[in-house]
């Protein structure tokens, strides 16, 4: 008979933190408050999500602007089999969404009933979580705006 061997698992954990700075910090704070921010470049175009430094010229960007909560789907991919950590427990679409007032798009989830309801160029609007903490997931996702459904 082999001797009994003592075993004791030890899991070490240590935290990481992240300082977000004035631009990403403002974007995240805005999300907590139900506001979506972009940032204006020298040529007048607006990046959303905002970036601290111009992606082409490397100049610092400082002019935060509020963008719309609805926008246009530029492209999308249907996710028919969501995994546990994904934004929705039923099939949904990943989409690049250009919000009104922004010139760039951001990736988020669109809660459409089926792929047949998705189309490039369709209008979508943000669905907010009620408990928000300053995180991109404060926007639960986007929902299709029915024709004539915008104020």
């Amino acid at each position, binding site marked *: 008979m082999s001797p009994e061997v003592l075993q004791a698992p*030890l899991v*070490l954990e*240590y*935290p*990481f*933190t*992240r*300082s*977000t*700075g*004035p*631009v*990403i*910090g403002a974007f995240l704070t805005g999300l907590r408050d139900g506001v979506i921010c972009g940032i204006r470049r020298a040529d007048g175009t607006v990046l959303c999500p905002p*970036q*601290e*430094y*111009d*992606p*082409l*010229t*490397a*100049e*610092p960007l400082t002019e935060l602007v509020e963008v719309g909560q609805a926008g246009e789907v530029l492209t999308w991919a249907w996710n028919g089999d969501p995994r546990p950590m994904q934004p929705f427990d039923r099939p949904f679409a990943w989409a690049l969404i250009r919000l009104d007032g922004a010139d760039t798009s951001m990736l988020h989830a669109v809660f459409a009933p089926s792929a047949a309801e998705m189309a490039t160029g369709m209008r979508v609007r943000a669905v907010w979580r009620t408990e928000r903490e300053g995180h991109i997931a404060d926007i639960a996702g986007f929902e299709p705006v029915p024709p004539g459904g915008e104020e």
Partner: protein
Amino acid sequence: MAAERTAVIGVGQTKYAAARRDVSMAGLLREAAYRALEMAGKTWSDIDAVIIGKAPDFFEGVMMPEVYLAEALGAVGKPIMRVHTAGSVGGSTGCVAASMVQSRIHRCVLTIGWEKQSESNAMWALSLPQPFATSVNAGAGGYFSPIIRRYMMMTGAPELIGCMVAHKDRRQALLNPYAHLHQHDLTFEQVVDSPMLWDPIRYSETCPSSDGACAMVLVDEAGGDQHPGPVAWVHGTAMRSESNSYGGRNMVSPAASEQCADDVFAQAGIVDRRAEIDAVEMYVPFSWYEPMWLESLGFAAVGEGWRMVESGATELDGGDLPVNCSGGVLSSNPIGASGMIRFAEAALQVMGAAGEHQVDGARRAVGHAYGGGAQYFAMWIVGSDKL
């Protein structure tokens, strides 16, 4: 074909601090990079390539940060390359940046090293259990303390030499506005009485944990000639490495350290190291590494390093070989930047731009870094004049 003569024309540093929560990682790097560009009189568009260095990704938990930093460092559409040699990385990054100009691949290079230690815990990051390998489990201090004891046994160094180094560096840090620790009233007795962390290393003999970045702009000979401000000419660069697990190695003075020093001094044409060098910025995260490196780098014979410390030879005030006039790693340790700070401070000395911690009339200075288990070494020698 001889290498292209290479000059440092800009140095930028952030004020080193325990936590820079007001800036993102990109924002921290920008601060140093912008200051270096400003001193160099350059703009982003003048930069041909960006060479960056930092310590292991685990230190902040950002995998391959060079990818996300390309925009903030003006590297879009240009080469960006990351160097990684543990704690020596800031020095190695400076060597690689210099080689980009020396080889005539690029004419104007921005190089930068950084660490945002507040965003994680380097000691635990160093102690991660790894499959099929021994965990350090005690951070760097626990690893280096027995090596220091070995040095003390070999040389008969008195117990308080380390405290003398620590007190010197902390006092010299008061002359450097960028230093993290400014302990105005620190007495030698307080250093001696500070808690023993890893025998023989006391609390006041160990480096702080800092956030910070350091950047340099390097140019070719024409760029150096045209620069209206002070210039530091690169007289030599060297890097060496060795395994830290080979049982036969000399851990007090690793062969790679001695070879690195021999190489760089030969490149610079220096015979009498102590006499011909005016200032040294060496990597001393634990006080005792000053006498140990003085010997390993050939500034002192074996067993004489601690005597140089004891005699005050390495003090900015009156010493013939001032060491770590900036306050050194013992006063500021943003790990990935710490080696580059040594290189940059050496450059500032020969530029005559070191401010209150300037060594009068410094013409030739050494920058030095080591990393890992004292297994990676990077050095450069810079001068006021062309070699």
